[in-house]
C-alpha cells in the first residue's frame, strides 16, 4: 500500500519530466556504494544513433521515428555492452529533446543497452522561458550535465564518446581539463561568456565546476567522424582525443588502453560485419588507419591478431560459419600492417594548452558558415 502511494506521489514528477516541464536530475550513487572505477559518457545522435539533421525534413523524420526505425551505428551496441561489463558506469547525455525520452529509451532497451544515467535537453522549458539561445547552445547544456553527473558519482577513469557534428570535442576537452584542474574558474567564466550562456546558467556551471571532484580522470575522448571530417582537424586537442571512422577503431584503442579484451573487440567486429556495411577487409583497413595515425602500434595490432586467434580457437566464433577461417582474418590484419613497409610510427607533436575562448568563437563561426550554406 505504501509502495503504491509512493509510486503515485512520483507520478506528477514523472509526467512532468515526460512532457518536458521538469528537468530529469540524474540519480547519483546509492548511499554507501563505492564510486565506479570507470565511467563512459556517450552522446546519442550521430554518435550512437545514425541521425540526420541536415534539413527540416530530417528533423521531422527523426522526431516521428519509432524505436524500431532508429538505427545504431554498426559496432556501437556491442561496444556499449562490452563497456557496461565489470560494473562500469554508462551515462548518456544527448541534445535530443526530453519529449523523445520514451522512444530513445525504448531503442536502447531494444538494443539491450543498459545505462545508469540518461539526460536529455529540456528545450520546451527553454522555449517557455524565452531562452532561444539555449535551444542551440551546447556548452551551457552539456557541460553542467556532465559536471552534475560526476558530482553524483566520481569515477577514477572516464572515457567520453561524441561526434564531429557539434561542439563535442570542445565540451569534452573542457570538461576533462576542468576536472583535472587545468582550467581555472576565471577561464571557465570567459568560455561561458564566449558561448553566450545566460547569466544564471553561467553561475550554476561555475558552482558545479567548483564542487566537482577533481582528478585527472578523463583518459580518452572519442570523436565519431560521422561527417567524415578530416582527422587532422582534431590534432590540436592532443593525443587523448581520438577521431574514429567506426567503432572497431574505438575498440582497438580501448584494447590498447587495457579497457577491452581481444574477445570483446571481436564482438564489436562481428556486429559490424553482421550489419552488412563492413567486410573483413574494411576492418583490416581500419586497423591500418589507426596505426598510420599513431593511435595504436603495429605491435599492438599483431598482439590483438594473435590473441583474437586464440579467443576464436576457444570458441568465441562458434557457430559463425559465414565468416572466413579466423587464421585468414588474422592474416589479413597482419598483411595490412606489413603493407605499411618500414615507415616510422607517427609521433605526436606536443600541443599547446587549448584556448577554449578561441575554439568556441571558431565553432560559432563554423556554425554560421554552415547555416549560410544551408546545412545545419
Amino acid at each position, binding site marked *: 500500500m505504501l509502495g503504491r502511494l509512493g509510486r503515485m506521489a512520483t507520478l506528477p514528477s514523472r509526467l512532468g519530466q515526460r512532457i518536458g516541464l521538469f528537468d530529469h536530475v540524474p540519480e547519483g550513487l546509492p548511499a554507501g556504494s563505492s564510486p565506479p572505477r570507470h565511467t563512459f559518457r556517450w552522446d546519442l545522435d550521430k554518435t550512437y544513433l545514425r541521425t540526420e539533421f541536415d534539413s527540416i525534413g530530417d528533423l521531422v523524420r527523426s522526431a516521428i521515428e519509432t524505436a524500431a526505425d532508429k538505427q545504431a551505428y554498426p559496432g556501437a551496441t556491442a561496444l556499449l555492452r562490452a563497456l557496461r561489463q565489470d560494473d562500469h558506469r554508462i551515462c548518456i547525455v544527448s541534445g535530443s529533446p526530453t519529449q523523445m525520452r520514451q522512444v530513445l529509451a525504448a531503442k536502447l532497451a531494444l538494443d539491450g543497452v543498459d545505462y545508469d544515467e540518461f539526460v536529455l535537453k529540456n528545450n520546451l522549458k527553454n522555449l517557455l522561458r524565452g531562452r532561444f539561445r539555449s535551444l542551440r547552445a551546447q556548452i551551457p547544456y552539456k557541460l553542467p550535465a556532465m559536471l552534475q553527473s560526476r558530482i553524483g558519482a566520481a569515477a577514477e577513469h572516464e572515457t567520453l564518446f561524441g561526434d564531429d557534428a557539434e561542439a563535442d570535442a570542445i565540451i569534452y576537452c573542457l570538461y576533462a581539463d576542468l576536472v583535472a584542474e587545468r582550467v581555472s574558474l576565471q577561464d571557465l567564466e570567459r568560455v561561458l561568456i564566449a558561448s553566450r550562456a545566460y547569466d544564471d546558467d553561467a553561475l550554476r556551471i561555475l558552482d558545479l565546476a567548483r564542487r566537482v571532484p577533481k582528478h585527472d580522470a578523463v583518459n580518452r575522448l572519442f570523436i565519431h*567522424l560521422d*561527417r*567524415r*571530417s*578530416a*582527422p*587532422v582537424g582534431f*590534432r590540436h586537442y592532443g593525443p587523448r582525443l581520438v577521431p574514429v*571512422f*567506426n567503432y*572497431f*577503431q574505438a575498440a582497438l584503442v580501448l584494447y590498447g588502453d587495457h579497457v577491452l579484451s581481444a574477445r570483446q573487440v571481436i564482438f564489436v567486429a562481428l556486429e559490424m560485419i553482421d550489419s552488412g556495411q*563492413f*567486410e573483413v*577487409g*574494411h*576492418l*583490416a*583497413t*581500419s586497423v*591500418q*588507419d*589507426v596505426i*598510420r*595515425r599513431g593511435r595504436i602500434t603495429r605491435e599492438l595490432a599483431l598482439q590483438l591478431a594473435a590473441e583474437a586467434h586464440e579467443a576464436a580457437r576457444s570458441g568465441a566464433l562458434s557457430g559463425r560459419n559465414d565468416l572466413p577461417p579466423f587464421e585468414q582474418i588474422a592474416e589479413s590484419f597482419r598483411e*595490412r600492417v606489413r*603493407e*605499411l*613497409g*618500414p*615507415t*616510422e610510427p*607517427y609521433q605526436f607533436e606536443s600541443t599547446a594548452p587549448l584556448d577554449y575562448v578561441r575554439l568556441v568563437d571558431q565553432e560559432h563561426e563554423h556554425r554560421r558558415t554552415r547555416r549560410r550554406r544551408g546545412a545545419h
Partner: protein
Amino acid sequence: MHRIVVDAMGGDHAPEEIVHGAAEASLALTSAEIILVGDAAELGRLLPRMRHDGARVRVHHAPTFVEMDEKPAEALAAKPESSIAVAADLVARGEGDALVSAGNTGASVLACARRWTLLQGVRRAALAAVYPTELRRGEKDDPFSLILDVGATIDASADDLVGFAVMGSAYAKLVSQNRRPRVALLSNGTEPGKGPASVVAAHAALVETTELNFIGNIEGLDIPRGVADVVVTSGFVGNVVLKMLEGVSETVVRLARYAHKERLAWRLGLIALSSAIDQLKMITDWQQYGGAPLLGFTHPFIKAHGRSNAHAVTNAIKVAHKALAGNLCGNIARTMAELDERASRRPRTADGSESGAP
C-alpha cells in the same frame, strides 16, 4: 567490394592531388576499397588532412616512383619497387581489381603489359583516348568520342583492329551509357577499299559482325564532328591524330588569348561570348572524364591525364569502378569469344585463311 589500386606517386601534382582525389572517391564509392600505392609515410601524413573514409582507403608502401620524363623501360628496370610496378603487381596477384595512374604513360602501360595477361581472344591491348566532339552520344549526352589505339603498340593487323573495335564498343556502352555505339575505322576515304591492307581487311571483317554497330570508314575531319562514337586505328596513326588534335585545340586557345590582348572590339566580343565559352569548356573538360582506359587485359587500367587534379583523379577512380561494376573485361571477352566462334564456323579457303578476309 571492388578494390581499386591507385598509383599515388604518378602525375604532375602527385601525391597531394592523387590522395585528395582518392579520399573524395572513398566517400562517393561505398562499395569500393581504394589502395594507395606510394611512400607510406608521405601518404600517411596527407590522408588525415582530407575528408575520407578510413575503412575504405588503405596504403601500400612503395619506396620509389617513376618520374614523368623518365624512359619507361629503363625506369622500370632501375626501379622494380616503383609505385606503378608495385601497383601493377598487386593487381596481377589478385590483391586489387583495377588500376588508376596519372603517372608516366609509357611506364604504366609497360608495367601492366609485363605483369597482366590479355583477355582470351585479344591479341593486343589498346590505349584509348577521349576527344570532345560536336555531336553528343548516349544516355548521358556524352560529348566525348573514343579513339583507340593511341600508342599502346605501333602497328596493328586486321585482327587487332577488329579487337580494338570490340573493346572500344564495350567501353563506350558502359561508360557513355551508349546502347549501340557507332564504331568506325579511321582511313583516308570512306570507301571500303580505301586505306592500307590491314584497314581494308578489318573493314571486311567488321561488316560481317552483328555484335557491333559498324558504320564503315571515316576520315580525320569526321573525328571532331563526332560522326563515330568509337574511332579505331593503329597505335601509330592514333597517336599522331591525338597529338595533332590537341595541338589544334591549344593553338585556338592561344589565338583567342592573342585576340583578347590585341583589340578592344575583339576583347568585347570574347567577353560577350564568355558564358558560351565557359559552357564549352565545361562540356569538353577532360577532368570531368577522368581518364582513358588501357583495354584488352583481364583487369581495367584507367590512365588519368598527367596534369590531373583531385577532381580528375576522383573521376578516373569512378570510371575504374564503373568498369568493374559493369564487368567490362568480361563483356569484351564474351564478344571476342562470339567473334572467334563465328570465325571458326566460317568456311576456309585452300590456304587456310578465312573466306571473305583478304
